[in-house]
């Protein structure tokens, strides 16, 4: 490390010029294949976190963020246009609304079952199966909304 001055033939003038634009990530085969390999596992982990919230740490919010992270990695490597082909704009917009409506719908169903709003005891025949079912459905709604909103925030910010 003591030799800091470059040799004569490697002066900055002789070196190739710095590339002005960074190389697109899609041109790097290792990154492309690793992303392809990684994304299914990230998605499965996200779904696991959403559905397993009542047994371990996690829930709809964290799982939704992980799902969105899988999509964002895909968009970073393959480009926004390709990513928008996988989840079009209208799909993420609609899913964000559907998540909230689904949550509220669970509340309404328990109302029609004879209970109060979001009282999961009345979702199934007995409270013992209604409570886990209600929590599962509600977390699903949260996960849908969070994932789609995070996707929307990212794409709207990067798009130009």
């Amino acid at each position, binding site marked *: 490390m003591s030799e800091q001055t470059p040799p004569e033939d490697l002066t900055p003038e002789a070196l190739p010029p710095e590339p002005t634009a960074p190389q697109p990530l899609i041109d790097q085969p290792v990154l492309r294949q690793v992303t392809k390999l990684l994304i299914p596992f990230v998605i499965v982990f996200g779904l696991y976190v959403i559905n397993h919230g*009542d*047994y*371990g740490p996690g829930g709809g919010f964290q799982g939704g*963020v992980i799902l969105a992270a899988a999509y*964002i990695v895909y968009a970073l490597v393959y480009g926004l246009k390709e990513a928008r082909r996988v989840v079009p704009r209208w799909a993420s917009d609609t899913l*964000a609304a559907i*998540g909230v409506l689904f949550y509220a719908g669970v509340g309404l169903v328990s109302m029609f079952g004879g209970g109060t709003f979001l009282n999961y005891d009345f979702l199934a025949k007995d409270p013992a199966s209604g409570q886990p079912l209600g929590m599962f459905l509600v977390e699903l709604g949260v996960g849908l909304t969070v994932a789609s909103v995070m996707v929307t925030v990212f794409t709207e910010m990067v798009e130009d």
Partner: protein
Amino acid sequence: MIPFLTGGLLMICLATALAIVRIRNLFACTILMGIYSLVMAMIWTSMQALDVAFTEAAVGAGISTILMIGALVHTGSKEKVREDERSGPHWPSLITVTVTGALLIYGTFDMPGLGTPDAPVHRGIAAYYKSPESQHRTHAPNTVTAVLASYRGFDTMFETAVIFVAGAGMILLLRREETADGQPVNAEASSAAPPEPGSSEGEAA
């Protein structure tokens, strides 16, 4: 053992926060904020608040960092130094921050010790949430999820609605008119919000 661990991690947090204040390179700042979130996640883990740690790691260190970098694409990564910043600290804000910080630290003297069983938060209804009776009722071994999704389901519903509103605001503020692959849903949304006021606001800002 655990207090030393938490204390050491808090020291790293403090150092990271000071570095974030001092550094002018916004990209380095963003990465430091991610590091700060990761260290905070470790602190939550050492306090056995796994759900909070998970959220901190996923949201604070993961998504926020990516969104910050997405914003840096538009702003550039070098912070501008204003002329009045060179002359020295801004005394009114320094005094305000110091007094507020001192008041907050003073407020912690009245707080119960960490993990005290008879702290006010553990009396009330929280005792029921943690009881075996409650676990039998909700069939959720993780009390945090039982409280969030079942006992306080109404709150969580509106939290979800707040996230939805954040996404809707993002769409209204930043979405451009799409010409090539404009979907029918989009066309409705863009016709509902006329483009003229949005563009004039953009020029004014």
